[in-house]
């Protein structure tokens, strides 16, 4: 037990004395949360709408005022804009005499997502306006759709990316840092001495992963604090449940890290394997950046093998939707299965000799 404590202490000394590792470890979550929270956002705010008003009548002015009053759009009458709205002449006349009038929206679809979002917003505002007009005139037989965006009524990005960043950071810390720290011992030759000592190889693994387990928990706490206090995203579900699920995911990732270390001979290889083999799939297949439902079937099947996908779903369910254990039974069971399997494989592969 004393051996284990000394070993773990030694690992902490390595981390604390390596400024670069420290920076990655504690800078990364903060930077990612801030970047995703404030820079890389696909929320639409203050998009400019260029309006060409050929009608110049009461009806067109009322519509323009309504658009300008919304949070999303700022109306401009010259210069480049994100969106063009053209109101033809005789707008009020068409509306009051024919009962229908048309306007044209022109968008820049070189960024299709943004174009769709903007035109949807603008159409919605126009529809609202039309509804008000209809109600004033009391036209019967109207189907009114009321859409409610549950869990995220303001359509903010944070509920989507905070779980994603958590999965990403844990993956990075646990897989990359753990594998590098084990492979470094091989590279520096200290593994030879560790193996030749009476300290059991199994315990070497345990001692190697404990520091990263603790550091990962610190990372989760800092991400959650940032998301609550900086991004204003509350934790809706049970915090103990969120933490126990995170620890399950951390154990899965640590087992992956040990597995990588048994494959890689040098620190560079360990880093490459963790980056390409773990981080990239996490980004692509966790559902955090690209919706998995839209992928072709083979890719959907692959995504099932990515632990981060299940963890991402768990965090979304617990943290954002405030659901309990019964809602995440399947995900939790899969993660548990993965961690047991990966631990078994990596312990088996961890050699008691050099070759």
């Amino acid at each position, binding site marked *: 037990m*004393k*051996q284990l404590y*000394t*070993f773990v202490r*030694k690992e902490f*000394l*390595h981390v604390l*004395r*390596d400024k670069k590792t420290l920076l990655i470890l504690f800078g990364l979550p903060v930077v990612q949360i801030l970047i995703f929270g404030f820079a890389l956002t696909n929320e639409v705010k203050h998009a400019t709408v260029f309006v060409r008003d050929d009608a110049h009548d009461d009806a067109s002015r009322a519509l323009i005022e309504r658009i300008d009053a919304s949070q999303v759009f700022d109306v401009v009458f010259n210069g480049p804009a994100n969106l063009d709205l053209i109101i033809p002449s005789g707008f009020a006349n068409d509306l009051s005499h024919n009962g229908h009038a048309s306007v044209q929206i022109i968008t820049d679809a070189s960024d299709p997502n943004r174009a769709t979002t903007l035109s949807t917003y603008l159409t919605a505002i126009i529809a609202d306006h039309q509804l008000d007009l209809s109600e004033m005139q009391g036209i019967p037989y109207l189907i009114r759709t009321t859409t409610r965006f549950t869990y995220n009524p303001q359509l903010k990005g944070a509920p989507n990316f905070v779980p994603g960043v958590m999965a990403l950071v844990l993956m990075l810390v646990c897989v990359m840092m753990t594998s590098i720290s084990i492979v470094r011992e091989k590279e*520096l*030759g*200290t593994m*030879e*001495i*560790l*193996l*030749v*000592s*009476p*300290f059991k190889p199994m315990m070497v693994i345990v001692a190697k992963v404990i520091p990263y387990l603790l550091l990962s928990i610190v990372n989760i706490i800092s991400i959650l604090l940032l998301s609550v206090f900086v991004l204003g995203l509350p934790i809706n579900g049970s915090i103990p449940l969120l933490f126990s699920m995170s620890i399950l995911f951390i154990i899965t990732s640590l087992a992956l890290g040990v597995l990588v270390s048994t494959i890689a001979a040098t620190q560079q290889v360990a880093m490459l394997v963790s980056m390409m083999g773990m981080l990239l799939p996490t980004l692509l297949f966790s559902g955090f950046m690209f919706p998995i439902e839209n992928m072709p079937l083979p890719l959907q099947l692959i995504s099932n093998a990515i632990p981060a996908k299940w963890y991402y779903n768990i965090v979304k369910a617990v943290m954002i939707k405030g659901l309990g254990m019964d809602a995440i039974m399947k995900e939790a069971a899969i993660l548990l299965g993965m961690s047991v399997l990966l631990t078994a494989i990596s312990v088996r592969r961890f050699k*008691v*000799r*050099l*070759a």
Partner: protein
Amino acid sequence: MNAVELHRVSKTYAKGTVTAVTDVSFAVKRGELFGLIGPDGAGKTSIFRVLATLLLADSGTAYIDGFDVVKDYKHIREIIGYMPGRFSLYQDLTVEENLNFFATLFGTSVEENRDLINDIYVQLEPFKDRRAGKLSGGMKQKLALCCALVHRPSVLLLDEPTTGVDPVSRKEFWAMLTRLKEQGISILVSTPYMDEARLCDRIALMQSGRIMSVDTPDGIIAEFNTPLFGARATNMYLLQRSLLADPRVETCYTFGEELHLTFVNGSADAIDGVVASMLDAGHTDVSISSIRPTIEDCFIRLMAQ
């Protein structure tokens, strides 16, 4: 019972394409300081790794204190002290932290075996708060030896402990080994330096994965059964060319500032004749005198056979 025993050990790498050790057998007696002497690539490190239970030999058996290196590897790991060829401590930990770490890892403490490592430790003490990576080469090796000794092993395996170390530190290091031997620790040490061979009780000369000879240093020198001569002249390079061309000369090689040579018929009778013909050939200040062979001479002779 011998401290270390190898029986016909062979080891290859890369699926048998690279041969490291072929059919090696030797034994180190209890309390003996045994040297494995040979150039880089002779297979010394492979032997150490087989003995340290880090590699499995392709064939043959090896024992440490009577324990099989394959079957009883767990027990062997408790009784050996192993110092790998390259510096294998934590460079970002201080001298004291390294020492305490390895002591704890082996289930002991620095204080417990202080008497054993005291000689070395007093030299390290002024630097105990220095990071191991910032030590000089000699100090690093002393620290590594300290770490290998801290659990009072019964057999010490030292793989080229003095390579890359300055002559003064090398001398100190060997003085320490002699004292450790007196404490009853059996030591197997490898070195590429022939001058260190004389400091061992017995040595094995290795070349290309094979053992050429095992004996005491004096015994090995005694096997050098033909008289050896040292030759000098003003221009050593041209002298060597002329000597090699002379039919009376058997071998001639540079050795430090001299040429060492043996004659075909073995005896010293040829000296005067050879000196005369060298002077005739235009060499100046030619002198040839009888000398005592060193381990290196023996090594060169064995290699040529």
